[in-house]
């Protein structure tokens, strides 16, 4: 069971070290710094590692061990995995490199490792993984410097180092993460297993993926289509074209990337072009409901920003909602006469609490509006806080999604903090805000189209 890996009662760290610049040292330190269960360092040369009693082998540990992190040279992994199996360990995370990623000899070693894992009914992440994080149980079995803030985004990454760098970056951004899973060589646990596991994981609300290739393609599509949770994926290697000198027209056009795009869409996976887009969308999913339709209202204190947002909405296939006369009347009462009460609403420089609060209330009550993009453009004469308070206040009572875009950097920080504390996704430029909203809309479309369709790929 994968739950033995993500929510173990006890962990052995095989290859534990006092040296924190070594994998076995850093991972042990990270596990000890948060994890509440029992931790057993394993190192035949030490009586104690990082202040914890150490054992010379897994077999010597007097209690049950549910999960083991293995960080030792690849040629030593097989006997250690065998020992784990005999000990009754349920899951192993094999950090060691030197398997199928290195060539045929490594691939053979990996095959033998999988046989041992299967023989004892264990599950394995890796080999060649950079570990896993499960925030709800404070488990950081990676070399990431700290635990992320709590959240519902689970991140599956095929690339180890890039994945960890991204995870660190999301932590810097204050994005709430639930799990980070570096898949490594996917010798036992692959994307299919992980999607199925995360689908059933109550702590996961959104799945973000960095993929270089997918194993078991059809099963993967099936698993992705079954889950109602949004999956946002970046699949690299886009530039690879189909082979040139091929037999048919179809063959010359159908490069693997085109096929990936089609397959992802059929399975209801949102394909992102950039890493920013993956997490921009994930952030929106993690804290906003899905809109009922694609009719968007935009409010801004500056016309330029709302034009940029409007253009991007059209590019993304979203509709700029026609506001009811009643809505326009309500807005006219709180904005200057030379502002615009039509969508996109332009408060003509005003960013008072009342102007934003009353306008947003009117917009969200309008039945022609499914979602709102609230923009604030900072100037030296304006204050980023009152409009942020207004958005957060109104949003609290409204089931429609609201996306924020507080532009301008220095001077906006306090406003941005208010938005964050109100769980409003905020983006630095309108295009990013619009694209994040577009992801919500597309996922909702997936839920009513592909995710309800019959048929099977199996």
């Amino acid at each position, binding site marked *: 069971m994968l739950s033995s890996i993500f929510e173990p009662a006890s962990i052995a760290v095989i290859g534990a070290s006092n040296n924190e610049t070594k994998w076995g040292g850093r991972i042990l330190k990270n596990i000890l710094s948060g994890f509440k269960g029992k931790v057993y360092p394993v190192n035949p040369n030490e009586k104690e590692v990082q202040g914890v009693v150490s054992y010379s082998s897994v077999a010597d540990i007097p209690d049950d061990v549910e999960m083991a992190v293995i960080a030792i040279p690849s040629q030593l992994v097989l006997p250690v995995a065998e020992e784990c199996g005999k000990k009754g360990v349920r899951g192993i995370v094999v950090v060691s490199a030197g398997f199928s990623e290195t060539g045929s000899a490594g691939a053979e070693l990996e095959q033998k490792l999988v046989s041992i894992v299967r023989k004892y009914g264990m599950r394995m992440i890796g080999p060649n993984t950079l570990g896993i994080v499960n925030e709800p149980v404070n488990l950081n079995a990676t070399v990431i410097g700290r635990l992320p803030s709590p959240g519902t985004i689970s991140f599956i990454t095929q690339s180890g180092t890039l994945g960890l760098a991204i995870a660190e970056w999301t932590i810097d951004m204050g994005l709430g993460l639930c799990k980070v899973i570096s898949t490594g060589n996917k010798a036992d646990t692959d994307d299919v297993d992980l999607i199925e596991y995360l689908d059933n994981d109550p702590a996961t609300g959104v799945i973000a993926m960095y993929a270089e290739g997918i194993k078991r393609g059809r099963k993967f599509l099936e698993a992705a289509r079954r889950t109602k949770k949004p999956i946002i994926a970046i699949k690299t290697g886009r530039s690879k074209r189909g082979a040139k000198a091929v037999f048919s*027209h179809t063959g010359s056009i159908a490069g693997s990337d085109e096929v990936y795009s*089609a*397959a992802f869409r059929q399975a209801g996976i949102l394909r992102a072009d950039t890493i920013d887009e993956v997490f921009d969308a994930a952030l929106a999913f993690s804290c906003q409901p899905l809109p009922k339709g694609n009719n968007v209202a935009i409010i801004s204190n500056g016309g330029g920003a709302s034009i940029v947002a409007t253009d991007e909405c059209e590019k993304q296939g979203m509709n700029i909602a026609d506001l009811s006369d009643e809505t326009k009347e309500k807005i006219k009462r709180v904005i200057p006469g030379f502002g615009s009460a039509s969508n996109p609403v332009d408060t003509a420089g005003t960013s008072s609490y009342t102007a934003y609060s009353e306008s947003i209330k009117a917009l969200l009550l309008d039945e022609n509006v499914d979602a709102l993009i609230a923009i604030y453009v900072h100037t030296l004469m304006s204050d980023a806080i009152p409009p942020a308070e207004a958005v957060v206040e109104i949003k609290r009572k409204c089931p429609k999604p609201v996306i924020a875009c507080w532009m301008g950097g220095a001077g906006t920080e306090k406003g941005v903090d208010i938005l964050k504390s109100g769980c409003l996704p905020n983006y630095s430029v309108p295009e990013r805000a619009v694209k994040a909203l577009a992801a919500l809309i597309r996922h909702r479309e997936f839920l009513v189209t592909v995710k309800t369709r019959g048929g099977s790929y199996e």
Partner: protein
Amino acid sequence: MSKVLTEHEAKNLLAKYGIPVTKGQIAATADEALAIALQLGTPVAMKISSPDISHKSDVGGVVLNVGREDVRATYNEIISIIKKAVPNANIEGILVQQMAPPGHETIVGLKKDAQFGHALMFGLGGIFVEVYKDVSFRVVPIDKSDALDMIAEIKGYPILKGIRGRKPADIEAIARVLMSVSDLAEKENIIELDINPLIVSESGAVAVDARAMVE
């Protein structure tokens, strides 16, 4: 091992899955060609049939709109052109075929994909596919809503819907072909397949030429 099917073989495969194809038979002599042409109704299309030649028109192996009085001469003409152009080609004969009905040229194709099984492609034919690559893809199997989506997805869709007073093409017929090709992909060992063109008229769609590589 892979094997290239001749047009005739590829079309027989399509017909097996209920895909309409232009009727035709292979003639081994000029007299046979005329007999087939008279049976099909003239004018006819005449195409070289050889497992060694898959780009038939590139080597001068295709003549269209052949009237009854020209069938025999055309037979001999194509054979002599091919013997010069591709001296080592194993020639089965000449495929004598109904002329394609007027309509929109579209392309339907399959490609075996290492990850997902088979990819199914649809697009407008001719320069639309050659230059603009205006095509859509799905992984098979597909259902009818997938088929309709992939037709509507191409940029040239308004052309099929009928612009400037032209009557709309038979979208349902294209969808039926796409679903049949999806079915075929699931049951046959296809590496690559092109139906190019699939001619779509106001009522019906017919495969006029096809190429396939099978395992």
